[in-house]
């Protein structure tokens, strides 16, 4: 498959499996620059994960809060001591909205990625292993979905799923489902292609000859190998999913504003602000999105670099020839 940045995700060529945790081998095999990328990505993502988990304790105010101690906040105020990131047109604290936005993003993405994996991976395994018309139909459908702009697909699924539900849980779940539908084809495709490749391997043929049943072959032999690529795709996907979530929010879909803070939605409101020179309502949420996606992408790309043997860089030291006896003599 071709990742969002155009790289090819290869199967686990050349990486000797030593760990049962999918993806750990790739992590161990990174070196130098790649490891730096990986570390930077983990730190970035970790930072936001902490924000998300402890939002209620870290954020100075609620995401919808426009007053405290009986006093309403001044609307559209720039960054100040009380409001580090300023306030919005409705008087909400931007910093708090950014922090709670992290929480929303994480919730949606985790649900979406998990669902995508739960649906996409087994489907890919089964389809790749058994082949036949089922496989052909699924491939055609997923190719068609794959070719479709993900945002538009997410929009119509979001319409279909939510159809009016306004609660926070409903909003998060329906948005997550919309994102899931968009990304299931990716997992399906990669797992299916890897399965088709592994299916022809001699050891699978040997197992079949010994009478192993398809279920056993799939779980014991193929799954373990194929699943190594999933974490890489998941991290790259998570970045894309966050962008899609923000896009949905920007267009007014997904989470109901009163139910949770969402960065994309805030950016939409911020567009109207800039003609007055108000930059803080847009820049902070925007930077947050960029940092999270960069973090997740760095992790994914550094792992991918390792798995793709063509891109692996071995540090090359210039060889210096020692003097020969003849040369030292002269």
């Amino acid at each position, binding site marked *: 498959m071709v990742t969002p940045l155009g790289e090819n995700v290869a199967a686990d060529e050349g990486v000797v499996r030593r760990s049962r945790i999918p993806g750990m081998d790739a992590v161990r095999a990174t070196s130098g620059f790649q490891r730096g990328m990986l570390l930077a990505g983990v730190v970035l993502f970790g930072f936001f994960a902490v924000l998300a988990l402890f939002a209620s304790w870290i954020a100075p105010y609620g995401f919808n809060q426009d007053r405290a101690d009986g006093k309403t906040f001044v609307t559209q105020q720039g960054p100040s001591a009380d409001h580090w990131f300023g306030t919005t047109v409705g008087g909400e604290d931007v910093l708090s909205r950014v922090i709670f936005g992290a929480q929303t993003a994480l919730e949606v993405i985790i649900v979406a990625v998990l669902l995508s994996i739960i649906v996409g991976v087994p489907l890919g395994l089964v389809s790749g292993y058994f082949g036949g018309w089922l496989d052909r139909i699924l491939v055609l459908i997923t190719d068609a979905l794959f070719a479709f702009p993900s945002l538009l697909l997410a929009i119509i699924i979001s319409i279909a799923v939510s159809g009016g539900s306004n609660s926070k849980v409903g909003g998060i779940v329906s948005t997550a489902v919309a994102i899931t539908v968009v990304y299931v084809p990716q997992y399906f495709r990669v797992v299916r292609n890897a399965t088709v490749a592994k299916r022809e391997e001699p050891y699978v043929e040997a197992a079949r000859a010994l009478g192993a049943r398809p279920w056993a072959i799939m779980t014991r032999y193929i799954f373990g190998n194929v699943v190594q690529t999933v974490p890489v795709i998941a991290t790259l996907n998570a970045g894309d999913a966050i962008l899609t979530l923000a896009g949905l929010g920007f267009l007014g879909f997904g989470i109901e504003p009163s139910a949770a803070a969402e960065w994309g939605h805030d950016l939409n409101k911020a567009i109207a602000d800039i003609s007055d020179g108000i930059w803080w309502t847009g820049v902070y949420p925007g930077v947050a999105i960029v940092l999270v996606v960069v973090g997740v992408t760095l992790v994914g790309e550094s792992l991918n670099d390792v798995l793709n043997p063509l891109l692996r860089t*071995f540090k*090359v*030291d*210039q*060889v*210096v*020839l020692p003097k*020969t006896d*003849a040369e030292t003599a002269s």
Partner: protein
Amino acid sequence: MTEPVLSVGDLRVWYSGPGGPVRAVDGVSFALRPGEVLGLVGESGCGKSTLGRGLMGLLPRGSAVGGSIQFAGQDVLGLPRKQREKLRGVGMGLIFQEPMTRLDPLMRVSEHFEEALRTHEPDLSKDERRTRALDSLRALGIPPTRYRNYPHEFSGGMRQRIMIALALALRPKFIVADEPTTALDVLVEAQILRILADIRERFSPAILLITHNLGIVAEACDEVAVMYAGRIVEQGPVREIFADPQHPYTQALLRSTISLSTQELHSIPGAPPDLVAPPPGCRFHPRCEHAMQICPTKQPPQFDAHRTECWLHDPSLSDADRAPLEREEVAVADEA
């Protein structure tokens, strides 16, 4: 005795590996006269390919070259990069092992020839270039009707012939043929060998034929050099070497060749040497059945007509030096 086209003196080519410098070529000397074919044989990984690449100057990043290479009177290693580039193709040509991927898939065969000829002989007119290319191809058995085809429209054997034709069209004085038939089946191999013989008759370039196949050497070469662990352990006329091999490695190689008269299989015990940390002294000593006390201590000089690098041929050894070398049995696990 005519002047040698190529003469190599104490050549060293080390390239950079994960475990340290790899001493692929570690002190090699030989000379080639015009029209002569020198076969370079050895096991996989003994440095033959690197030698060929090193002569051409096509080494990976981080490699180092030492010693001297004299080509047509010029000191090649001292040349600036641009001059070296000029030498390639028209002075020294290279025929690769794997023909399937050696042609640009986006360019027609004709364009390959045009490009090469325009680079090296800019005075030729378009028609002259075309004639030269077609002649070259025809000599290799490729008809002019296929001149404008793309590489993927040819089989492996045909692509190798196109590669050879391309190399020859530039009329190089010296050709390195790096295992030109290894990737091809036996029938095609025979064709290519016939073509090589033909080339010798027509153009008489000097050829360095790198191969691990002794049969090809016997058929196509005048002289042969046996390479082991980065050094040439024996070299001389083919007939002589094959009839009366002096070095234990050469003897073992010839013994392990399978022919119709083979009764049992021989192999050389032990594993190929580690080129990062080669065995001290004579590099073959861990696998040699005649190893003596002196062998691990000093690198043997060259003896006799075959320039054999083996202490067995030193008449002036003391009895102590000559005593057989005690060795622990090479455990199977050690080989792994």
